[in-house]
């Protein structure tokens, strides 16, 4: 077992947060496609991480990133059982495909429609495909880095990514959706 740091400092915690919080958010987002839920899960994961560091006789965290990602995944799964979801309450962002921006009403409507279709298509994909797409497009990670985070083969990531993109291109073509300039 790795030796535990004597007194984990907030500065070290902050550094780990800066380094890994986006990845934690991305995995949580891929599960529910909801930014608010993803943010809650991310904060809860880091809170548990900090508490784990505080336990004097607890098991040391050897790989902070792996620990955080595993906890985020578990929390995202547990979210399905939470009272918030059982009560059928959904964050406003789920209802509306896009939060308000400074663009005009017509442009906003077009974007809402397109993003709504993307969300519907993403919901049809497997959780792993959603994780790959989120890491690729939200965090701009390359295939190798995605493979490392998800602990899968880089070729598999490439294939899954190509297939998901193709599928989305087909669906968007069917629905006559094109990117708004």
């Amino acid at each position, binding site marked *: 077992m790795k030796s535990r740091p004597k007194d984990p400092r907030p500065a070290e915690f902050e550094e780990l947060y800066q380094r890994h919080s986006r990845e934690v958010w991305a995995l949580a987002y891929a599960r529910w496609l909801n930014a608010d839920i993803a943010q809650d899960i991310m904060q809860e994961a880091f809170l548990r991480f900090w*508490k784990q560091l505080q336990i004097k006789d607890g098991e040391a965290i050897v790989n902070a990133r792996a620990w955080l990602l595993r906890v985020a995944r578990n929390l995202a799964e547990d979210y399905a059982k939470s009272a918030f979801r059982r009560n059928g309450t959904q964050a406003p962002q789920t209802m509306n495909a896009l939060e308000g921006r400074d663009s005009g009403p017509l442009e906003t409507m077009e974007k809402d429609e397109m993003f709504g279709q993307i969300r519907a298509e993403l919901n049809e994909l497997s959780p792993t495909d959603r994780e790959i797409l989120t890491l690729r497009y939200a965090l701009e990670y390359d295939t190798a880095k995605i493979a490392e985070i998800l602990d899968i083969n880089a070729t598999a990531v490439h294939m899954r990514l190509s297939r998901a993109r193709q599928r989305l291109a087909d669906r968007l073509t069917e629905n006559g959706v094109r990117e708004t300039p």
Partner: protein
Amino acid sequence: MNRVQQNEVDAVLTGFFKSQMPSPWPKANLELAAPSTRAPRAGGSLTHARLVLAASVLFLVFGFLGMSKHFQTEPQDGVTAVEHIANKPGPNGALRAVPKVQKNKELPR
């Protein structure tokens, strides 16, 4: 029908996912994560509480033993309480006729 190209899909997906990300990125919630500001418990207070508890238990045990000796009704030498009472003379000096009770045997219901 105009086919949506892969680069257009990339642009659409990038736009979608970027729009979902919190902006600005939330700071680490150190208020929640910070260690408790509550004053640490004094070192001796737990020991003191244990000593008080032990003394209370000892007091109860010795109190029970002392009281039970004071109110003892069962005489020594293997004589049961019933036999003890039966052997005592009544108000007129005569012994009472009490049937002998066998020890450790269940009485018929």
